[in-house]
Each structure stands twice: as C-alpha cells, then as structure tokens.
C-alpha cells in the first residue's frame, strides 16, 4: 500500500433487544457525537469530514434508500455519503480504498440497524433467496445456517454440548462489555434445553435480535497522527464470495473465508496467524460459526474445530473477548463491531476485556446465507 491508513476513533451505542425509545437517527447521532468528541473533527470543506460511508440495509429498515434518513445526522448535508449495504466490515474495506485512492484523507463510517423493527428477522433474510427455487423451499439465513451447522459439526466433530459452552463463554465475556445490555448469564443446560430453531441450531445458540449503531473515523497517516495518539493501522484486508445455491457449495469448506484471510494476511505480512496475532474478533452469528470461522482463519487445522474447542482454543487465542456477535449485534453490523472491538483492544481501551500489550488483531465479518461473503481485516498498533 502506498499510504498508511489508521482508525482514529471508535464509537458504539449499547446493543439492546429493542431500542424502542429511539429512531435510527437518534442511534446514529450518538455515535457521530462520540466520534466528533474524540477527534475534534468538524465537517469543514477540505479539512473536516467530507466523506461518510454508511452501513444499513433497505429491507431491514423497510425503507428504500435507507441512508436518506441519515444525511443530516451524519453531517453529510452538502457533503459526500455513500452506503455499503453489506456487513459493515465491507465499509472498512471501502473506506480504506477511499483514503488509499487519495480522494479523501478522512472518512467517517456510521452503521445502524434495528432488527426489532421488522416483526420477523427471518422474513427479511428469506427475501435474500431467489423467487424460483430457494424461496419456495422456505430458506432464510437461519435455515441455511442450520444446514451448514449440520455439515460442519459432522466434519469437525463438534458436539451440541461444546456449542452450549461456546454460548456460555460468549455471555461471560459480554458481561465485561459495557456495550452489551440486557443479556442474561445462562448455563449450558439452559442452552441445550432451548427450543430448536433450525436443527441443530437452538434458540440460545443464535445471536439475539439486536438494535444499535457503530462508527469509526479512518484517516491517512498524516492526519491520523494529529487526530489521535493511538492510531490503529489497517495493514491487511481481504474479501471473497462463495457460490449462492447451497447445493453448489462445500458448506463446511470455508472456501470464501480462507481466500479472504489469505489475502488479508499476505497484505499484512502474516505467515503464522497462531503466533503473530494477539487477538481475534470473529463474527459468530450462531455458536457453530465460532469454531468454523476459526478454521477458516487458520486458528486451527481443517476439521479440528471440535478439538480446538476442547483444548481451550478460544481462550488461548483470545477470541471474542467482546462477546462476539453471539452477545447481540445486528447482523449487518457484526463485522464492523468486530473491527471496533479489535481497535479498542489495540488502543488499550478495552477495560475489563483488555489483552495486555495487544499489538495485532484480526477481525472478520460475513454477509449473506451461511457466510457466503467473508471479509477479513488486520489491524496493528
């Protein structure tokens, strides 16, 4: 890369089951105000924030051009705003390219979503399937995940009990995360007793419906050094699409994630992720995805997810100390929250979750059915 780009500030609302008391605008404004407060930036032409990359989804928001509601609160009145309508880690990729291109030196990313607004999250994701073959079969992202979970658990010898432990661990970690509100601590038995949603995924193995907003300020090296004394450099990024029809894919094969990770690691100069990265923020929308994406990221060998879990792999590699998506982030913001949490760790601002001396982190996000599109970001201090 010709220029270096850093994250200069991170802001999040809390994530709740229902922010009934706020609209999208209110949530995003909280985030924008925190970012402005942290950096002292304004929106002056040429010197302030002139480019905003938003993250939202028209179907979740039930609003065509869902960024149309946000122009004023993100400060984009008579400025540039562009919407990424995929997982927010994609917005980090795009904002990075905006600065690398030279077109802008400072970019603000703001994402929002209220999964509590539609009466059924599954109806929304059901719309992602084609009208001719996959919709009539009744697929939505939950059902697709169920199919993937079956394939993966068989291949990597992961048991229901191990997944229950993943959930318990996620909530224990989330208890140290002030942004995670209203999430009860539970036992493995409670997880295993919760109703089946899409075999083998049980209710408590799925990420809870969540509302919230998250944002970042990215800047070129020159600007970053003036905006913060703790710039977090984005040293690698990679993304990759898998096929669409589930039958075309090796559902447990991590095709897309491996390629995305390899690209990001090559860019960042990582050749042994197990020893060269201090912590990982993985988007585990469902418990089985924690070991599965760990395999794709190279944290353990292929088919060794079950063994990795048994040997305390997640704790040893400092995976999802934030609680992960399992603790409750809107699906479309999952990867962006992972980047935010990783950045907080590298800035030493992770409070009770802090990994001492963390220097390098990997964050991952996914979009689409059964993680069809994967995005990996490498961050360094």
């Amino acid at each position, binding site marked *: 890369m010709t220029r270096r780009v850093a994250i200069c500030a991170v802001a999040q609302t809390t994530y709740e089951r229902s922010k009934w008391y706020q609209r999208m605008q209110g949530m995003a404004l909280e985030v924008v105000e925190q970012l402005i407060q942290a950096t002292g930036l304004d929106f002056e032409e040429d010197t302030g924030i002139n480019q905003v990359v938003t993250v939202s989804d028209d*179907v979740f928001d039930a609003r*065509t051009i869902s960024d149309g509601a946000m122009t004023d609160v993100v400060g984009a009145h008579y400025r540039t*705003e*562009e919407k990424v*309508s995929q997982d927010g880690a994609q917005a980090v990729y795009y904002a990075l390219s905006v600065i690398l291109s030279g*077109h802008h030196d400072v970019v603000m990313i703001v994402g929002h979503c209220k999964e509590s607004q539609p009466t059924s999250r599954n109806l929304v*994701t059901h719309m*992602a399937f084609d009208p001719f073959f996959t919709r009539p079969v009744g697929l939505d992202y939950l059902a697709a995940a169920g199919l993937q979970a079956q394939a993966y658990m068989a291949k990597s010898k992961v048991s229901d009990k191990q997944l229950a432990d993943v959930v318990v661990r996620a909530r224990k970690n989330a208890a140290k995360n002030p942004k995670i509100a209203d999430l009860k601590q539970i036992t493995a038995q409670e997880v295993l007793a919760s109703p089946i949603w899409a075999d083998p995924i049980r209710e408590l193995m799925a990420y809870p419906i969540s509302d919230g907003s998250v944002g970042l300020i990215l800047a070129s090296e020159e600007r970053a050094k003036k905006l913060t004394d703790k710039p977090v450099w984005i040293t690698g990024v990679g993304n990759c699409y898998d096929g669409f029809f589930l039958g075309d894919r090796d559902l447990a094969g991590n095709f*897309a994630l491996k390629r995305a990770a390899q690209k990001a690691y090559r860019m960042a100069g990582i050749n042994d992720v197990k020893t060269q990265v201090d912590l990982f923020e993985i988007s585990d929308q469902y418990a089985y995805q924690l070991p599965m994406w760990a395999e794709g990221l190279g944290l353990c060998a292929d088919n060794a997810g079950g063994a990795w879990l048994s040997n305390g792999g997640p704790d040893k590699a400092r995976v999802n100390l934030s609680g992960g998506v399992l603790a409750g982030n809107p699906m479309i913001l999952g990867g962006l929250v992972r980047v935010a949490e990783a950045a907080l760790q590298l800035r030493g601002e992770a409070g009770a979750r802090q990994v001492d001396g963390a220097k390098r982190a990997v964050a991952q996000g996914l979009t689409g059915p059964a993680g069809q599109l994967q995005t990996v970001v490498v961050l360094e201090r």
Partner: protein
Amino acid sequence: MKKNRNVGIIGIGQTRHSSHREDVNQPEMIHEAITLALEDAKMTMDNVDCIVHGNMELFEMIHQPDMWHVISDGAYGKPGLRLTTGGTTGATLVCGADTLVASGLHDVVLAVGFEKLQEGHTTGGITNMADPLWGRELQTGALTGMTADAVIEEFGEKRAKHAAMKMRVIMDKHAMLNPLAHRRFGFTDDMIPTMIDNVPPLVGELRIVHMCSQSDGACAMIFASEEVAKKRCPNPAWVMDHITIHREETFNLFGNVEEMTTMRYAAKKLFERNGITNPRKQIDVFEMYDPSSWWGLDWIREFLLLEGDEHLKMVEDEEIAINGSFPINPSGGVVATNPIGATAMIRVAEAALQIRGMAGEHQVKKDVNLALASGFGGTLWTVLVLLSKNPPKLTEK
C-alpha cells in the same frame, strides 16, 4: 484531483433496455451486460479482480441480490462490494470502482448496475423512501409538478411549456438514434403544440410524456489501472474526477432548497478543481440524469452555472441537440431509458462511449475530449463524473 493512480474505462456493456425483459431473470439479464463489457475490453472473467454491484433492492424485493447474482456476475471466488444510494447508485458504482482501482487494491474492477422495474411497482418503491411517520402516505414516487410550476412562474406558461416539450422531443430524437434505448417514439417538432394540450397529466403540469421511463436493463463497465488500460485498450475513457453531494430530507422533498441546489454546488466544486471556467465551451458533451423534461430543463441552468433564461435558449435554439454546440444526452437520456439501478451508470457509460468514439449512430460529430455525466436520486442528491480522452495529470498526492 488528488489521486494515487489513473483509472481508465476499457469495457462497456448494456442490455437493450425495455419495459419487460420477461425473457430473462435478474442474473441472466446482468450477465448479458457483463458479457458485452468483457467482449468490449477483450477480457474474460479471469482478468477481473473485483466486482462492484448495486441496484435499488426494494423494487424487486430481493434482499442482498448480489448473493444470488454470483451465479452470473463472476464474483464466485473473488472480492466484491455492494453500494446502494438510490437513483444515484449507478454513478456511485462508478465512483466506487474508480476508487478501488485508484487505491491500488485492485487493478481491474467490474461494476454492474441493474434494475428489473417490471418485477415491482416503481412509484410505490420510490414512495417507500419516505419516512413512514410523515411522508410515506403523501409522496407519489418521484412525481412532482412543483418544478414545472416554478419554471412556468419564472418564464410564463407558454414559453415554459414549449421549452419543456421541446426538450422532450430533442431527447426522443436522440433516442431514435440509440438502438438500446427503451422508449423511442419518433416525436417531431410539429407535434409539440398537440402534446402540450393533450397528453394526460400525472401531477400538475408534469405529464406522462415528460416523465422518465420505467425500464428493465443492466449496465456493466470495466475499470482498469493506467498500466493495464494502456496495455489492453487503444482508447480508454479516463476518469478525471467525481463528486457526490447529498442533502437532508425535509417535508419539501423536491424543492424549497435552503442553500443552492446540489447540482449547482457539485458542478461549482468539480469545475473549480479541474480548471473548468467555461463549462459550455470546455465540456464537449453532457449525459445528464433527466428524470423528467422539467427537471432536465431546469438543471441545465444549475449544472452549467447559468443565470436568467440562457438554458431555455439553449433548448429553443437546439444547442443541446446532438450536433449542437453543447449536446445533452445523445443517448436519449433517462426519459427514454430508466432501469434505475443502472441509469446513473448508463450516463457515465454513454459519456465514455462518446469519448471513445464508439457511440455509433448517436455519436456526436465534434471532437470529444471532456465529457460530463450526472447521477440523481435520494432527496435531490447529485453525483457528477468527469471523463477525459487523455489520461489526467495527477497532482501531488
């Protein structure tokens, strides 16, 4: 413009645009455009590093359609991105592709924008952009007569109505030269008085004939780094600059602007930073996003930073005609063809065709060195893209 490296457009493909492409589904339709773009660039999918995809999904109600479209857009095993900004989407995809190549992250980026408006209800889909708590039961899609009223108030009913209809006829004459255009009626000047009196109104003085099409169609463009472009293409169109300007939503969506219009603001900034002091002379052709003839007419003044009735004269004297001094929309424009997610990209594609001398029957005869393309959408947002025949000189990074 500060830019890491230059970006050239080396491949362009469009489907034939139509009211009902019932012979293809969405992936098949975009595949047509992508195949044509690859053929134009003399490339295969293997040469493409990244796919940038966009549309306005609430028309077809497919959530995250780029997932399904992997079966036909070549994104399998590759990086990609989805950008969606309403009507400006196509132009945002151009900005995104240009940005990704200029950044150095990718050398060759394929951008594809599309819409299958017959798979949904266009006006209903646009009305859905309104706030559900106050505007959604009042908005009528993109239909408004307020601009017509303003033009009529400023210039008098007779002159205003004639100019808007003349604009419409000129656009149709251009569309008749574009075999891909959706609506090609064969209007002639002597039909103008009858049309003014007899065409049914949609909203106020906005009549059916003034309003843009609702089309099915796709557009694909291939963007390459300077090195790749020069090696592979004898005549790239170079991306010189682009700018996006948004505006807050208010009760009065389509007018009553507090500051200057985003069109004028964007044009001012773009021209200033590219040494354009006389756009009418220095820009050779303009593909303007004209959602209606009234808006098209009004915005000539905004984009060219004119005052008074200069823009009406440009229409009345046919300066905007294909062989006029300042041709606008030699393709026929948005009134002729409007697959919304592709429309703003088609403006850039058509401008690029003009620069490359590849617009066939609707090629302007004069030398085209600098071309301008605009995108429109949202709450009166503007995207402007400036293309040049010669690679731009890069300023200091």
